[in-house]
């Protein structure tokens, strides 16, 4: 189990956190590779079924960021 790495599905707002992720990339910042980013038009369009669908397909965590 020691080499287990979590899979985290990140639902990021196009205008906020996705921009921040972009900026982090441009700035060559280091962060853990466990997140799988899904860009959504706005966090307001986030539905609980997205989170459930992610878990259903085997995600270990869900992160919603506006």
């Amino acid at each position, binding site marked *: 189990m020691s080499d287990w790495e979590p899979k985290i599905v990140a639902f990021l707002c196009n205008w906020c956190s996705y921009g921040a992720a972009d900026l982090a990339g441009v700035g060559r910042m280091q962060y853990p590779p466990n997140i799988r980013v899904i860009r959504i038009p706005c966090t307001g369009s986030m539905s609980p*079924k997205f989170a*459930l669908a992610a878990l*259903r397909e085997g995600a270990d965590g869900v992160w919603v960021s506006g």
Partner: protein
Amino acid sequence: MLGYIDKIRQISKGLIEDKKVDMIIGFKKGTMPMMNEPCLVKSPKDVEKLVWDSNCGINLANYLTDRKERIGIIAKGCDSRNIVTHIIENKIKREQLVIIGVPCTGMIDKHRLTSMFEGEIEQVTEQNGNITIKGEDFEEILKKNDVLQQNCSVCIHRNPVVYDELVSDLVEEQDVDRYEDVRKIEAMPSEKKWNYFDDLLSTCIRCYACRNACPLCYCPTCFVDESRPQWVGKSDDSIDIRTFHFLRAYHCAGRCTDCGACERACPVGINMRMFTRKLEKDCFEQYGWEAGLSLDERPPLDTYKPEDPDDFIK
């Protein structure tokens, strides 16, 4: 509650005769004990069909969705709150409705009564707060208050919140602890919670009676019927069943009035209100909101206030 019916019939008859409404939505006597069938009355002579007793647990607001006629509707406390929700959500117009308010003293829990007796119940009658249950070889008198639907026994809005006519004096509201059972679950560790709900839903056959009996569930296409993309599998897999119940509850957040129609409709006796009640409790504690009390106030999920709780956000 039995004394109401003459008044209900009299008001209904008047409304139809004066052409104030095209139809009355109420209950008629069912073919089984503890069952009444929702019905539509269009002519004064049919008014005699209407009945009212402690077996009118189905929520009549369910039959209003998108109707165009002028309707007289018989509404107990929870029905009236769902009518308010319907009006707020533009599913019916206030001007179309004549609401015949019925102060309610609770509905009988038919699941529980059925399971209380070995033999078959053939007749259930009520008088002065007592219920007489008759079967082939037994007869028992119980206090009505002891056999209420669970949601009725913790109901704090027994009187209709909006009405045009009232069939009797308002009844006294109860002062009860509404959420004892929800707190019990909140106190469980995660694993125990998971198992609790696994067990709760283990007999679900996905007939969707809970969804369809619910006045809130009027979406033209339910998320379980969506296929592009398909959010939830359609088999009797336990995760898919749980997803259905969980998301349905979410869709009712801030709208559910705990009328109990879902639980009453369930053929296998699942208390799916354990999902909706948690959300109801949260809405009340975090936003001070109870659904369907006022026509003028917007529900918390479509308004924003600076003081909304946000401590779950990093």
